[in-house]
């Protein structure tokens, strides 16, 4: 049986081993064409895909570019025609070459008039915190909004991230704080804040930077600005540059000079004599006038992440007056404990304060 099988296989294999059949037709051309199609198709596909991606990205960039340039150009035109001297020069030059001397004045007049109207229109269009209308304050859909939220863990500057806004301004969002940055359709940069935020605003006359606090709006030109906004009040300090503050309810306007601090609450705007202690991490200045040690320790924690343990809870009720102009926590605590006759020690990065309560 086995032998039979092998013989049968052998017979078939030997018969068909060198079997050939001559083909009646030559299909090589078709085969060659089909072989050529494949790489071409693949290559073309990649090229098409690449082309489409390229076109799409060019489209997006152009759209973005023109959207930005459009507003800038409009503003440029306004500044050009706002000075009357330049105006006349600009307009009368081509007129000279065409008209006679007598006619010159008339032509200038007629040409200047529409420009004046333009000027008025342009000025009214220019966004300013004092002229901001209610409808301007509504964040429209379709504009880019970026939200920065800080964690509740750290406050110290070492661990604070300096975030760059799309307009290359930098912001520092402090512990438990939040910023919504929006490039508005009206052409101004809008920052809605909650908590403590520091801004380093990149100056751009054509796109004013307006900070929306709980009680007021602030237009910042130029540099550093720190603000603390919560339900009770907006507290702010201007470090460099200029700022214009408008109260939401009273419409009171106040210009802020560098180094000046303001407080805006539900009643109105008040000037503060000294920089608020919330900004000590930036201003390196802490001011106390008969303040509770509790608030001093709170400020040190909020500003410098200082870890302090009090052996005696009553120490918190002590009062302190004075100014710290150093950001070294050890030095500040030394000064504080010395004036209150307390004992200061440090272990594993934690400051320990011992002593008797001041009330006794």
């Amino acid at each position, binding site marked *: 049986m086995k032998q*039979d*099988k092998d013989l049968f296989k052998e*017979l*078939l294999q030997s018969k068909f081993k060198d*079997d050939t059949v001559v*083909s009646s037709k030559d299909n090589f051309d078709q*085969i060659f064409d089909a072989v050529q199609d*494949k790489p071409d198709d693949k290559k073309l596909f990649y090229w098409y895909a690449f082309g489409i991606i390229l076109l799409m990205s060019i489209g997006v960039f152009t759209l973005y570019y023109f959207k930005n340039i459009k507003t800038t150009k409009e503003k440029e035109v306004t500044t050009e025609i706002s000075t009357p001297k330049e105006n006349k020069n600009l307009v009368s030059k081509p007129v000279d070459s065409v008209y006679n001397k007598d006619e010159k004045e008339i032509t200038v007049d007629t040409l200047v008039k529409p420009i004046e109207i333009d000027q008025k229109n342009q000025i009214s269009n220019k966004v300013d915190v004092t002229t901001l209308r209610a409808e301007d304050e509504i964040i429209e859909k379709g504009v880019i909004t970026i939200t920065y939220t800080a964690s509740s863990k750290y406050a110290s500057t070492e661990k604070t991230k300096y975030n760059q806004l799309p307009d290359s301004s930098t912001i520092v969002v402090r512990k438990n704080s939040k910023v919504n940055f929006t490039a508005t359709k009206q052409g101004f940069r809008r920052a809605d804040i909650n908590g403590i935020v520091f801004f380093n605003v990149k100056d751009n006359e054509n796109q004013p930077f307006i900070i929306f606090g709980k009680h007021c709006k602030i237009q910042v030109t130029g540099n550093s600005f720190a603000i603390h906004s919560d339900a009770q009040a907006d507290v702010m300090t201007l470090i460099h540059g200029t700022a214009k503050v408008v109260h939401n309810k009273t419409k009171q306007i106040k210009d802020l000079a560098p180094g000046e601090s303001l407080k805006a609450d539900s009643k109105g705007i008040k000037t503060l004599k000294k920089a608020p202690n919330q900004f000590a991490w930036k201003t390196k200045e802490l001011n106390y006038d008969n303040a509770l040690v509790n608030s001093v320790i709170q400020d040190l924690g909020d500003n410098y992440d200082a870890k302090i343990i009090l052996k005696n809870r009553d120490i918190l009720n002590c009062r302190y007056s004075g100014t710290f102009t150093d950001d070294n926590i050890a030095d500040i605590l030394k000064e504080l404990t010395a004036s209150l006759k307390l004992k200061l020690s440090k272990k594993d990065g934690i400051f320990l304060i011992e002593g008797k309560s001041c009330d006794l």
Partner: protein
Amino acid sequence: MNKQEQGKLVKACKKNDRYAMEKIYNTFMPRMLAVSLRYCKNRSDAEDIVQEAFIKVFKNIKRYKDQGTLGSWIERIVINCAIDHWHKIKKTVLVDNSDMIEERETHELNEIEQEELAKQLSVEKLRNLINDLPEQYRYVLNLYAIEGYSHKEIGKILKIKESTSRSNYTRARKKLLENMRAQGIKKY
């Protein structure tokens, strides 16, 4: 065509050389058509299978490494194309039960008879006899007896049970042997 010449042609084919491709096609086409005709009754279908196989050969020539001869590589591709063709046209699967085939029904083939049959039967005749077998028997017989696949492999390739392949082959062999004997003019 010696191995060196083949190697040169393959290299040229990899560079998309038309002349080299045509040379390979003309060299191997008659052999591949013969292989294809063992699987496919219809000559035009067999030619289509060969054409498809050559397209695959040239598209995948970059994957060909000098292991084994070029001819056997192309032959395997032709067989695979024939199997694909079968899957396309297949409507029913023949399920045989080997138990039904009785032992005594199998006629024995001895060496003398094998020699005689080899002499008497031309390749064309033998191919026609194979073509007279039902489609599935033909594929199983070709793959098992000529190409040397195991029943397990055939089961996978044709998507049938291994036992089906085995019984199909037994029946096909029996039928073919009978027909071969009937065709053989001289009796030993």
